[in-house]
């Protein structure tokens, strides 16, 4: 356990020093959400209908934005080899990195989502469900981001390829997340989709570290 916490601490400290790591996904989220009204229409009805989808797509893209840096900085300065050689399981270390990634990219999204939701005229009663759905969905997105980053860490410029690889895998999260939000907007209980989001999170968080560790080992060889 101490290995996990020390890895987590380390990554968070590094992220704190480069505050742009917090800011970039967040600003991206806000900007994308703000661009959609220009593309759609300023009318209340249109935005309320599109709002759920827009917010979730923006959240998805923002989570994946911080991807490349996940393992690359460790790769470049050589600490990745040290991590592989360490007696601790690489999967556990990757899990710690996923948690750090979530704190940096997922948590700010959850906190600012209500503000953006209101800008899309979504009813205030739906906001708690939206935040809770994002709370369950963003860990899955971080897990998928980790897999994508691990697969491309051996490449010179893996950036755009990562998105391409990971985005199709995010479809279930998108489906259940938007469904939960829509149900809340219409005043219904969103328990079903929320459970499914939780299941996806549990599933991806348990498998992503394994897959990522395997991919990293291959890339470092």
């Amino acid at each position, binding site marked *: 356990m101490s290995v996990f916490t020390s890895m987590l601490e380390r990554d968070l400290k590094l992220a704190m020093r480069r505050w742009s790591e917090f800011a970039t996904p967040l600003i991206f989220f806000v900007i994308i959400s703000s661009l959609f009204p220009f593309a759609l229409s300023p009318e209340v009805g249109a935005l309320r209908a599109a709002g759920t989808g827009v917010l979730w797509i923006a959240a998805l893209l923002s989570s994946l934005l911080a991807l490349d840096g996940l393992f690359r900085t460790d790769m470049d300065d050589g600490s990745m080899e040290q991590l592989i050689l360490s007696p601790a399981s690489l999967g556990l270390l990757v899990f710690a990195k996923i948690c750090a990634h979530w704190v940096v990219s997922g948590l700010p999204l959850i906190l600012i989502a209500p503000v953006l939701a209101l800008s899309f005229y979504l009813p205030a009663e739906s906001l708690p469900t939206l935040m809770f759905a994002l709370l369950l969905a963003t860990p899955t997105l971080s897990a998928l981001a980790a*897999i994508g980053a*691990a*697969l*491309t860490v*051996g*490449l010179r410029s*893996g950036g755009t*390829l990562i998105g*391409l*690889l990971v*985005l*199709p*895998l995010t*479809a*279930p999260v998108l*489906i*259940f997340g938007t*469904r939960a939000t829509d149900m809340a907007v219409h005043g219904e209980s969103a328990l079903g989709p929320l459970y*499914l989001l939780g299941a*996806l999170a549990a*599933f991806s968080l348990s*498998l992503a570290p394994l*897959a990522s560790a*395997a*991919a990293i080992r*291959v*890339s470092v*060889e």
Partner: protein
Amino acid sequence: MGLKRTFHLLGSPPTVYRLAGLLGPWVGIAAVILIAAGTYGGLVLAPPDYLQGDGFRIIYVHVPSAYIGLMAYELMAVAASVGFIWHMKIAHAVAVSAAPVGASFTFLALVTGAVWGKPMWGTYWQWADARLVSELVLLFLYLGVMLLRASFDDRDKGDRVSAVLAVVGVVNVPIIHYSVEWWSTLHQGPTIAQLDAPSITMDMLVPLLTMIAGFTLCFAWLILKRVQAEILDRESRARWVEQLVTGASA
């Protein structure tokens, strides 16, 4: 003892190469016969559907394509895992070969689905058809694996990294399929029907099974050919390859 020996033989490139060369023509001939028979059965022998008339005959090319597309991905994932775990080049060769073939059959399934959809739904595409949408996602997964592998200069790394992606993908396929199906039923009106023959009788089914078998053998022929090419590429320095080539040109 017999199983272990078979496993070892399957890992030996010259053995697999020669085996592929021997099997290839027979598999190919069988494929041609079955596809011809299936086509004839589907276009001529099968009676027209009481709802869709002769339009349903597209099923005889759409369903086999979709089946191959899905089966090829599973083969690719299994072969890639075997190659990853046991460091078998042959397994990676199978995975590399399965990808483009599977992707093109998935693409074919999408196109034939769209053409079938036009008279049935009135539009070429229907997001509410969960099976078709799942196939679209499957195509994206294929493209991802192929692109990832192509991005690596080191063939070994490319094999192993794309193997991880293939496994991640195959695990996700049922999840994606289930969630897309769930999503499509939410918004489905009573008029939208999935692409299928509504009630299938024996004389409609037999040509379909024949076509599926024929397509499978065609797929097998394509894989055998491509695996042979892969082996030649990967073993180009080996003496048996030199002997093979110089023997052939002599």
